[in-house]
């Protein structure tokens, strides 16, 4: 439904989100119209369209967002304060070597995207590929194109900028892989907006994400190291980030990496894409497997399809690992709710972010 | 006489034809006009002063226009507001060309009926026609200036015989391609009914 709190327009988007620096470059507002554009990781309202009530404000994950409400509509099952509502948490990996070889960790995202394309869930998949050193959105139509976009990018790519044009084209159904902020934006688009073509978003695969990097990070790879292409990136245990580039392996410490984290990430209380159909992330300590959270029936049927076709294998998630993940998620949420991290005026029920009271208590660790 | 229009409507060509026709008819003719930047959508005016005896300055004095031939209603009013008097006759093409302030939705454009009413309040007689549609039927809506010259040539109370306008047009078309000649001739020869407002 269209909420009163979201009845605002691009000037407010500028004043409340982009201007103060809370934009996370999800790209949901970009290309909804000729007035909002993106280049690299920058999103700008280039001209005031003069409407005071627009879809741009409604889809933004940094305007009023009621997580409990949205989750209720999507998952229909009870919520876990740490990880959001889910049906099961699994460990998974691709059974196809050629996919695992090209992809990140267990290759689960790429596998699921391939199945979604080849098995009639959608005719296109919105992914992110690395163009030289910069992430950019790409619309994949076949397995080859999915594999070209495989691998984690860690940058604040405004991927949904590619979606809005696609929704107005002849594509019938699209699967989207995105960061939690992008997942949230998509759900707001489906439920709180009047964006044309929003019914074409067939399936949402969310990633785990605790932070993402500004493009100045990639700029300095160029200027400091002379790197012009990135083949692979990941977050090693002891360091901030490690990249396999044409100038060899480049590893940055946590300290160094932190400088490039997008400011808007500090106000994110959704590290595990709680509103996605499926959420996929790494498994700390076991790079061969991914963690897969099944949240909706739709998501579950995609996983089953993948398994039936022999593309995916799964095993249960260890309790220790689950606890570790939950704690990490809770800590991030706690920081945001208590305003310890830099955040907009996050005060329960008076902020852009809303969880119900019970959830808030659990996040804070009050009571049981 | 003042020929008024918007830059790009072929004002200069029209005044050139009228001047040539009047000269051939034996008048001393002086024309004053402005173009250059005016092509870019601004208001354009051509002042024509005809006399058997004297050579006048290039601009019609305020309040002394005998005839205003206007390619656009707002421009007709704009010119009439400064140059009309109780004796003035206006012939106007009623198709509006919207100023950029209007297409940018920053200003409104008055109702054409109101503009015509306003013009009438300043002059003796007002005649209207849709020259753009007539030009479109002749083959190109941009030939509305020739249709307006057609209207001028046929107006019974102006001093230059239609024949001279015809010759002036032939002169102008001498270097033109056959397609252009056809369209312009049709625009000059089509039937024009000057409706009295």
């Amino acid at each position: 439904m269209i909420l009163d709190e979201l009845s605002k327009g691009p000037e407010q988007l500028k004043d409340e989100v982009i201007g103060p620096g809370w934009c996370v470059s999800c790209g949901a507002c970009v290309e909804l119209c000729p007035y909002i554009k993106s280049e690299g990781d920058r999103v700008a309202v280039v001209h005031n369209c003069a409407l005071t009530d627009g879809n741009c404000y409604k889809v933004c994950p940094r305007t009023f967002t009621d997580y409990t409400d949205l989750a209720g509509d999507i998952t229909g099952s009870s919520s876990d304060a740490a990880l959001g509502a889910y049906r099961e948490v699994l460990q998974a990996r691709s059974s196809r070597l050629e996919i695992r070889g090209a992809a990140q960790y267990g290759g689960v995202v790429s596998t699921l995207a391939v199945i979604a394309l080849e098995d009639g869930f959608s005719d296109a998949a919105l992914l992110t590929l690395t163009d030289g050193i910069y992430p950019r959105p790409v619309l994949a139509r076949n397995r080859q194109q999915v594999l070209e976009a495989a691998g984690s990018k860690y940058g604040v790519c405004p991927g949904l900028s590619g979606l809005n044009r696609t929704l107005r084209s002849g594509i019938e159904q699209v699967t989207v892989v995105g960061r939690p902020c992008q997942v949230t934006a998509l759900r707001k688009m489906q439920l709180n907006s009047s964006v044309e073509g929003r019914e074409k978003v067939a399936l949402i695969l969310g990633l785990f994400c605790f932070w993402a990097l500004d493009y100045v990070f990639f700029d300095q790879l160029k200027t400091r190291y002379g790197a012009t292409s990135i083949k692979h990136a990941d977050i090693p245990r002891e360091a901030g980030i490690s990249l396999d580039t044409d100038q060899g392996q480049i590893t940055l410490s946590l300290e160094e990496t932190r400088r490039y984290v997008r400011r808007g990430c500090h106000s994110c209380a959704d590290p595990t894409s709680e509103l996605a159909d499926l959420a996929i992330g790494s498994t700390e300590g076991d790079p061969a497997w991914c963690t897969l959270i099944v949240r909706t029936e739709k998501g579950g049927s995609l996983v089953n399809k993948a398994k039936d076709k022999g593309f995916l294998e799964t095993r249960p998630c260890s309790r220790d690992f689950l606890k570790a993940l939950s704690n990490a998620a809770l800590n991030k949420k706690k920081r945001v709710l208590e305003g310890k991290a830099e955040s907009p005026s996050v005060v329960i029920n008076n902020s852009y972010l809303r969880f119900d009271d019970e959830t808030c208590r659990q996040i804070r660790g009050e009571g049981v | 006489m003042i020929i008024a229009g918007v830059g790009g409507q072929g004002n200069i060509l029209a005044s050139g034809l009228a001047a040539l026709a009047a000269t051939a008819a034996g008048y001393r003719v002086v024309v004053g006009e402005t173009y250059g930047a005016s092509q870019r959508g601004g208001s354009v005016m051509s002042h024509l002063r005809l006399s058997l005896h004297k050579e006048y300055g290039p601009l019609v004095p305020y309040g002394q226009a005998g005839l205003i031939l206007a390619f656009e209603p707002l421009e007709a009013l704009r010119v009439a507001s400064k140059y009309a008097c109780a004796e003035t006759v206006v012939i106007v093409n009623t198709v509006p060309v919207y100023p950029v302030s209007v297409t940018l939705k920053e200003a409104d454009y008055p109702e054409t009926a109101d503009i015509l009413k306003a013009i009438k309040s300043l002059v003796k007689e007002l005649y209207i026609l849709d020259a753009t549609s007539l030009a479109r039927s002749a083959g190109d809506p941009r030939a509305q200036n020739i249709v307006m010259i057609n209207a001028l040539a046929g107006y019974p109370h102006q001093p230059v015989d239609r024949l001279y306008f015809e010759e002036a047009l032939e002169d102008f078309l001498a270097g033109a391609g056959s397609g252009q000649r056809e369209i312009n001739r049709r625009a000059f020869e089509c039937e024009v009914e000057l409706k009295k407002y």
Partner: protein
Amino acid sequence: MIALNRPGHRVIMTGNEALARGALEAGVDFCSSYPGSPCVEVAESLFKLAGENQLYGEWSTNEMVALEAAAAASFAGLRALCVMKQNGLAVTADLLLSLNHPGTRGGLVIVVGDDPGAHSSINEVDSRHFARHAEVPLLEPSTVEEARAMCCWAFELSEQIETYVILRVVTRICHARGNFTLGELPLKEERKVKIEPWDRFFCFAPMHGMIHGRQEQARLIFEESLFNCYSGPEKAETVVVASGPALLYAREALELLALDQKTGLLKVGTTWPLPREKVLTHLREAENIIFFEETDPFLEQNVTSLMAQYGGKAYRFFGQASGHISGEAGPGLGELNTGLAARGLAKVFNLPDPLKLPETDHLQGILKMEMPEREMTLCPGCPHRSSFWAIKCALELDGRQAFVLGDIGCYTLGIFKTGFMLLRSVMCMGSGIGLANGFGQLHRFGMNQPVLAVMGDSTFFHACLPALLNGLYNEADFIAVVLDNSITAMTGFQPHPGAGLNAAGVAVEPLKIENITTGMGLKTLIADPHDLDETIPALYGLLREKGLRVLILRRECALQAARKERKLYRVIAEKCAGEACGCNNFCGRVFGCPAITMTEDSKALISDALCTGCGACAVLCPRGAILAVDETFEQGSEKEGLS
């Protein structure tokens, strides 16, 4: 038309054509010019004849070169004409003050077109001061006929006194039409031009005395000239002194007020040096002297100074200094006309204001609003509109409050809404990139804002090269954006070195701007401004870099393109989003193409009379609702988003 060989035939022509005719009747051999309103057609009409009559014509890259070229022809004994607008004469200032030293051989005439009221200029300049500054003769015609006669005579005058002559015209001569009788066209003989071993063309300070001598010689000739004439009572108490078309306004005003019988009227056509004796003859016995001229009180100041020196008594002067004779905005501002002249005379003679404007107080009531103004706008299809939109988007995305400097051309309209008010500076040709050289060094003083300068292709060749070299040499930090529409458009579509045609209409190898900039070692990108998906990222990328970078936005002028082939576009109303979120009438209301208006139910509508078929709106439309007229949706671009 101007070469019509029918002496004695009565014609009607524009002032510009009349000047060209005058030059032909004088047997002009060489004509060089840089296009400028209001006098561009003088050269244009002569160039159509180049080749015949042994006449050479060229569009020079700027007025300085044009005048130097004409001077060379004059040194070789040929008759040369150089045509430029008011600002162009200012460009030649250094040459004007040095060329007057060696003097000329063949007649050299400079026609300068002033623009009182600035109809087609950024300022209103009174070029007559240059004549006094350079101490050379100045002629000012009052009618189209006189323009022809003066131009013809000026070559002879120039040869008599052996220096160049400035013939100053204004918009109301250039763009006016008037009758005159054709004179004879001389038969030209074969000539053998030679520069002799003893020929020298120096400017040397001790020659200054010769300049005084020539000026005095001119004055003596002017005393007898029929271009100055007096009419009215022999010993008039009040005499009106006027030059240029202001004379006609004054004469008509005197008749309007029934003052013509008792008031003297002294027409001055040879405005500098003043024909001292002639002026004194008619003014010495007067009590009141009234001045009419445009724009500055040039004649007024020279005559009042003359009367103070030689007159012998106290006079009452009425003109700009006294405040009696005034343009609409004040003395010395804007044009005069008969009505304003009459008002001025009424003030002098203490008569009631004779201006009879129609009564218009009631109009706002009938219209239910104020009459909308007509602001200038870029033509439908103009590539500059897309260039400015691309720049606006790239700058907003960049977010560092970059600013854009501009100069003279169609893109000067970038100061208005039609160019999204992007331009922060407009002054003379080349001033945009010139300023960028300065702003581009201010990072040393803590300025963090990127600097852009836009310039046209013709302007690039005219004035921007030294600034570009300076930016390279002094390592300035800015982006030079060349708006290359392959023509000099604003002045009427004249060619230039990059356009592939010369003044005679012959195809020549076009000089590509990127060959110059890359030859200088400058990073140069080229993009089609109507292809915004290409242009915005290209400019955004350049903004992230440092140093002197060049972006050439190349697309043919829409009006030129439409002459060759005119596709029309139409809006499919059912697909048009109209006022809805996602559009809100972007094409007509924001992008601002003047060919696009709104229907009653707020759908976009393209005018078939105005559309030039550039196709930019079809690409920009967020709903793909605009197609070429012969296109259907099956053929039309159904964009699928990303590759």
